[in-house]
């Protein structure tokens, strides 16, 4: 879902909520307003109705007075008419004539009943339809009153007037006007119901029988009772029932009823309208503020003024939004200022950087580059803007660059490559790249550093190293080569069995010094190789006792030469080490050699070994010169020796202990030196990983250690005649059939004829080196399975690996120990025998 859609959803949701709340609030408001308006309208309506009923009452009071006046006038008029006829003066007058007069006068429509009495109250004439009229209980002197016939019958308004009866004087004429429905019907105005009440009882109603039977008034009828006449003490009243519908015209009611929603609507309109107008103006100000902010992107007086209008005087959502905009404006301004400052700093940094900083898009096009990068590649800024990385990268193809750039998205990397400058020259560069996505687009931010000089220096250094290595190898080779004939010569002298003790002494002295010189050369080369990490351990399981045995063979003569007392303590159980036997032997030898050298003659040297957990602890203790406290911390440092060594009395290069420490470390062990001080002896302790049992069962060495040569044929290939001749002589003394070749080609020619069983071949030959010679030899049928031993003064690992890869069977370093050579020849002789036997 897109951001717009989310915003839209959120907006709808808020609108719906606001709408629902508004509807509920408005509904409640309208309901309450309607109810209160209706109540107010009802109150007003009833108040107006009461007022109008009061007006009606006033009107009916007048009408009743008028009616009384009419009745009074009618009574007096009829009295006059009667007196005019003089019918009453003659008592003998025919009743028929009287009735005829009354008929013609329409009397039965004027009043209900008429009674004429003389002054004594005797009835003279009784005419009418009210048969229940008896004595009229009017006090004398009253002209009008009320009469109600017996048994709660009809109610009459009665008027009494004196009437001339002739000779008997004045009598009185009493006229009865009935208060009946018709009277009230004629009195009543449309819609109004009049009811005549006598002592609270309804007598007649303008609504007829239905009006009399009505029990209870409804709320929509206003009721008002007025006294009919002043002289009746309120016994007879006229009740006015005025329905609201009759009090008001339909138009008035419609206007009144319509006024409710109109007034409500006006209230709503004014309430909501003013509120909405106010808020509308505030929202408009809010919009203006946003426009102002969008235009200037910083706080301004106009923005502040608009936000002030939007805030208004109340705390609500609009004011909150206004404040938020104000905060946002300030924050944006601050951020913009900071961003601009940061941008300027970054641009300054970028432009002032010595490194070539450039930005690439994902297609490899240059987006931006600093001056240093332009200078680095020899382009101007404008030219650089149109370049692609494939235009100046000389190491990878365009496809490779695309793949690498895609792989760098979201990552950082540092690598070296080659760039091509505008002039076509190449420079080595080291590039740090960060690939990142900004607003959906991928960019690579690269910092290029010209490393051409560094690369050149490295190349030079590597060359120097190579030359040094070559020199050292050559040095070792050249140093070892003279040792071979010396050692061979000494050995020959020994083999010749001369009894002269001094010759024997001289022979042993030569052999010893040759060995010492060879070890110094080895140590010197080893230190160099270790320092460069060029020594590889050839690990195998080896029993400690075997190592100690070999050690004793090599160190024994030295110990004896100084008449030291050697004490050896080994564990009863075998101790197996996982390591390079040559290097471990070297470690033990150097420790023992050190003890021998720095212990005065007749000293005591203890060699002890014991298991300690998963390690074997090997210590070499002497009671020799000891080590000063000052020297002790640097005792394992290269070329470090005690001051006395300056005398060169003890010899050595000061590299033996350094080799011990490095080789022990390579085996996962450690070494420590301890001394109580000068003249108090020293203890060197080595801890090496060890086991009580071997991983692979030991295979008993069934091969003969040094069986007689038995006519075994050995070819010596050596261009140094001193070496070849002494070696050949020594081997012949041991019973071997020896042939010498001084070149590779000579060897290749003689081998098919001589058919040697072992070839001892120097690598540095004159015509072709040993590697080439052995390769060609392996191509010969006679040389395919032949044991060819490389015997060289180049003791480095590289030469050894190369020799074995070229076809040599064994690799031995000059000067070769004759015992080792004899063992090797013996083993090869045994193999040859087994092959022949098979």
């Amino acid at each position, binding site marked *: 879902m897109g951001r717009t859609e989310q915003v839209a959803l959120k907006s709808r949701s808020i609108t719906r909520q606001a709408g629902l709340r508004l509807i509920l609030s408005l509904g409640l408001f309208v309901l309450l307003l309607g109810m209160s308006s209706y109540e107010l309208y009802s109150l007003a309506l009833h108040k107006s109705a009461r007022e109008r009923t009061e007006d009606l009452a006033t009107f009916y009071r007048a009408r009743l007075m008028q009616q009384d006046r009419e009745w009074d006038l009618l009574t007096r008029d009829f009295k006059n008419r009667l007196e005019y006829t003089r019918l009453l003066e003659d008592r003998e007058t025919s009743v028929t004539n009287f*009735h*005829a*007069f009354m*008929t*013609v006068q329409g009397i*039965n*429509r004027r009043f209900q009943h008429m009674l004429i009495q003389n002054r004594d109250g005797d009835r003279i004439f009784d005419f009418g339809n009210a048969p229940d009229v008896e004595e009229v209980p009017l006090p004398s002197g009253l002209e009008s009153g009320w009469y109600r016939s017996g048994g709660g019958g009809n109610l009459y308004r009665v008027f009494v007037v004196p009437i001339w009866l002739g000779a008997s004087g004045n009598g009185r004429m009493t006229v009865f006007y009935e208060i009946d*429905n018709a009277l009230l019907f004629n009195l009543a105005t449309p819609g109004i119901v009049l009811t005549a009440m006598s002592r609270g009882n309804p007598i007649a109603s303008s609504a007829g029988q239905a009006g009399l039977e009505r029990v209870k008034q409804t709320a929509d009828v206003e009721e008002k009772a007025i006294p009919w006449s002043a002289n009746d003490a309120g016994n007879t009243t006229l009740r006015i029932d005025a329905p609201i519908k009759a009090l008001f015209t339909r138009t008035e009611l419609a206007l009144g009823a319509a006024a409710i929603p109109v007034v409500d609507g006006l209230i709503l309109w004014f309430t909501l309208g003013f509120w909405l107008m106010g808020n509308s103006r505030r929202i408009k100000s809010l919009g203006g503020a946003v426009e102002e902010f969008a235009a200037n992107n910083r706080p301004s007086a106009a923005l502040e003024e608009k936000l002030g209008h939007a805030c208004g005087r109340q705390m609500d959502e609009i004011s909150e939004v206004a404040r938020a905009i104000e905060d946002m404006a300030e924050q944006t301004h601050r951020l913009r200022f900071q961003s601009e400052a940061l941008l300027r700093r970054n641009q300054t940094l970028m432009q002032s950087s010595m490194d070539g900083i450039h930005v690439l898009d994902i297609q490899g096009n240059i987006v931006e580059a600093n001056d240093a990068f332009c200078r680095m590649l020899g382009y101007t800024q404008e030219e650089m803007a149109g370049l692609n990385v494939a235009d100046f990268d000389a190491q990878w193809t365009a496809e490779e660059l695309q793949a690498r750039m895609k792989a760098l998205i979201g990552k950082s990397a540092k690598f070296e490559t080659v760039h091509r400058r505008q002039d076509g020259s190449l420079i080595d560069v080291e590039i740090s790249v960060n690939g990142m996505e900004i607003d959906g687009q991928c960019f690579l931010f690269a910092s290029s550093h010209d490393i051409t000089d560094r690369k050149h220096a490295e190349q030079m250094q590597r060359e120097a190293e190579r030359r040094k290595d070559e020199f050292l190898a050559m040095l070792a080779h050249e140093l070892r080569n003279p040792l071979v004939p010396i050692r061979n010569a000494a050995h020959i002298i020994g083999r010749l069995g001369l009894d002269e003790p001094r010759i024997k002494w001289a022979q042993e002295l030569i052999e010893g010094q040759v060995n010492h010189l060879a070890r110094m050369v080895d140590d010197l080369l080893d230190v160099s190789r270790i320092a460069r990490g060029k020594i590889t351990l050839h690990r195998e399981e080896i029993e400690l006792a075997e190592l100690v045995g070999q050690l004793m063979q090599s160190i024994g003569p030295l110990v004896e030469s100084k008449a030291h007392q050697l004490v050896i303590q080994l564990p009863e159980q075998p101790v197996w080490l996982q390591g390079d036997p040559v290097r471990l032997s070297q470690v033990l030898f150097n420790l023992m050699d050190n003890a021998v050298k720095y212990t005065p003659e007749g000293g005591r040297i203890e060699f002890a070994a014991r298991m300690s957990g998963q390690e074997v602890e090997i210590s070499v203790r002497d009671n020799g010169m000891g080590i000063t406290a000052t020297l002790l911390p640097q005792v394992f440092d290269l070329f470090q020796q005690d001051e006395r060594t300056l005398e060169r009395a003890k010899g050595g290069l000061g590299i033996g202990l350094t080799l011990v420490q490095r080789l022990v470390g390579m085996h996962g062990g450690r070494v420590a030196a301890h001394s109580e001080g000068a003249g108090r002896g020293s203890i060197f302790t080595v801890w090496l990983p060890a086991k009580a049992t071997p991983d692979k069962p030991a295979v008993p060495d069934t091969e003969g250690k040094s069986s007689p040569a038995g006519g075994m044929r050995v070819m010596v290939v050596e261009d140094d005649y001193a070496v070849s001749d002494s070696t050949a002589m020594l081997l012949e003394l041991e019973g071997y059939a020896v042939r010498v070749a001084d070149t590779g080609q000579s060897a290749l020619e003689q081998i098919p004829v001589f058919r040697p069983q072992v070839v001892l071949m120097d690598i540095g030959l004159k015509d072709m080196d040993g590697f080439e010679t052995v390769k060609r030899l392996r191509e010969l049928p006679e040389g395919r399975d032949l044991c060819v031993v490389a015997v060289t003064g180049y003791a480095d690992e590289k030469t050894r690996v190369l020799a074995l890869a070229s076809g040599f069977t064994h690799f031995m370093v000059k000067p070769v120990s004759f015992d080792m050579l004899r063992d090797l020849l013996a083993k090869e002789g045994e193999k040859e025998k087994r092959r022949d036997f098979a």
Partner: protein
Amino acid sequence: MHINFKKVNMEIPGRMLFAFALMLVTPIASAQELEKIVISAPGPRNISYLPVDLIPAIGADREEGIALKILHTGGGAVALNNLVTRNADFAVAGFPAAMSLSANGGDVVGIAPVDDAPLFVLMVRSELQGQVKRIADLRGKVIGVNTSTRNSKTTSQQLAELLLKSDGVDLSMVRIVPAGQSWIEQSSLINSGTADAVMGDEPFASRLLDEGKVFFLANLADPATTRRIAGANFLHATLETRSDMIRDEPKKVEKMVRMMVKSLRWIAKHRPEDVVDKLKVTDPEERASLLLALRAYPRAYSRDGKFSASQLKETERFFRKTSEGDARAQSLEIESIIDDRWAGRSK
């Protein structure tokens, strides 16, 4: 195994329930009050309106649960006025008079016929027998006619004017005085000489004739007279009420019609003597005149209480004739003021 079934006697509870129900119903019935109906009609004992007097006499009102109060008036106009002014719920008056009232804005509706024939007599004082031979001879005479208000005319008035016009007597050539419709009023006018002629009602006309006080100049029961008068067999006395009564109290109207029909049927089934007896007329002369009239006009009353379509047509014809020159009266349709849903209608 033997099981004894006990029989439950249901009679005692049944009786008890009946007695209890009776006990409940009795006070309710006794508490019921008779419904009051007021009817106004000329009289008493005007022959045209005798069925009204007879209703309480024969107990037809109580049979309907009604206490009928009769407001007797001197004429049909007053009776109609009582109806219109709510003094009465019903009125019995001449239907042409009711039509005249209706044409002048009065709320009146005919709901049942009472008379079958109009019983009017134009009678003249015996002293004038030598001078007045025919209607035209009434020029310059005083004529008593039951009159109404200025805006409407009674049936007598309409009939008198029609008779006068039929013989070429202009109304300005005679003096009309109110006559009323009671014996006292009509007889006093004749006997006192106040009027020379009176448009009289029965049985007063026959009684005066019998006494030798008058002679009949025109009698609607006489075919010779009716031949000269258009619509002479019009519907006279009719039970009338207001439209608000029909709307608001139709049950009352129904009961009133039913009471009237009972009275008419009672008269149809009984002799004139029974009618007079039932009315308890004690005055011998009055009794004699009533019997005389009842015997003289055997078809005075409607026998079934149904409106006659032909009679209604006659009535309309009569009214049109008597109200010439009155646009509102001429436009009045008789059917618009007839509601026959209770009385019914015959040919």
